[in-house]
């Protein structure tokens, strides 16, 4: 992999990695650290990737693993991450702001499934593969997350 290729990958996927980390940690600084760790792992991995999609899946899976690692650290268990990000973001519509805070209040396992499904456009099976859980678990998580969002957001989050 040459420098240009690494730069291209870093720029293309850093936001996705960050969003995954942020969905777990709800903390900007931890998420930035995870972005750096994941990109460095990619740089050092010397792995032969079959396709762009393979790279993307690998990066997001590593991002999930790194985020989980952070969450189980004894230090992290003792502190409640502050959601300072919401104050930095400028939403064009109230619905967006409401959705953001409603999603951030979901349990992290719901948040990550929702993100993978609604933002990254992964199927249930693909999410299950990345998160290493059963597809039925992902279906349940998505269903419960939707119920919570529907009840919290009323008309904003519609039935599907």
């Amino acid at each position, binding site marked *: 992999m040459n*420098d240009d290729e690494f730069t291209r990958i870093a720029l293309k996927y850093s936001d996705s990695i*960050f969003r995954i980390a*942020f969905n777990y940690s709800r903390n900007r600084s931890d998420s930035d650290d995870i972005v*750096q760790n994941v990109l460095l792992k990619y740089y050092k991995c010397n792995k032969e990737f079959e396709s762009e999609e393979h790279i993307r899946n690998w990066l997001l899976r590593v991002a999930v693993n790194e985020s989980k690692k952070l969450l189980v650290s004894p230090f992290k268990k003792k502190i409640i991450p502050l959601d300072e990000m919401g104050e930095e*973001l400028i939403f064009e519509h109230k619905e967006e702001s409401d*959705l953001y805070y409603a*999603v951030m209040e979901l349990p992290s396992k719901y948040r990550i499934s929702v993100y993978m499904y*609604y933002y990254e456009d992964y199927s249930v099976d693909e999410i299950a593969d990345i998160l290493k859980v059963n597809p039925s678990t992902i279906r349940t998580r998505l269903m419960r997350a939707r119920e919570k969002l529907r009840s919290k957001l009323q008309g904003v989050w519609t039935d*599907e």
Partner: protein
Amino acid sequence: MSNKELYKNTFSKIHASNEKVTEVIKMSETKKRRKLVSKKLVAIAACVACVASAGIVANAATDGELGKTVIGWFISPDGKQTAIEGDVSYDENGNKTTTATLENGNNLTVKKDSQTGDEYYEYSVGDEESKNKKFMISVDDSGKATVEYDDKYSEEAVFGDKNTTGDVDETPSKNSSDIVK
């Protein structure tokens, strides 16, 4: 607007810090450059007397083929780096010798024992007056090399952070601590 569109519009506003991403890109570029220049940093030498204000970073890139190979760099006070090229030869036992003639006319030789893999360094001077003088190079853990000359003259060559030729992660070989005349 569908749930998916609303979700994407909302979360597309979340971005990684540009600064952190740039940092990691720069980090990778630096690592690659260092790898190219310094395959295996095993030695450091400094030029005494004749190159009074310049240090040399000696890199025993001695795994190359016969012929010229870069074994180190002069680093002038303004940071300019000049490669020191050495001639590579092998004896009948497979021991490798790399000799470079420095800008000041002195020779820096790296000998590698084919059996043990140990490397030895010799610094020889051309002028009659200096011929019998003993040079010693010591390398501390921070990578700073000090050249002593007849117990009265010394000069330091620093590699790592002050230039890009050395890999700061690697501690120079302790074999480089003894230099004979």
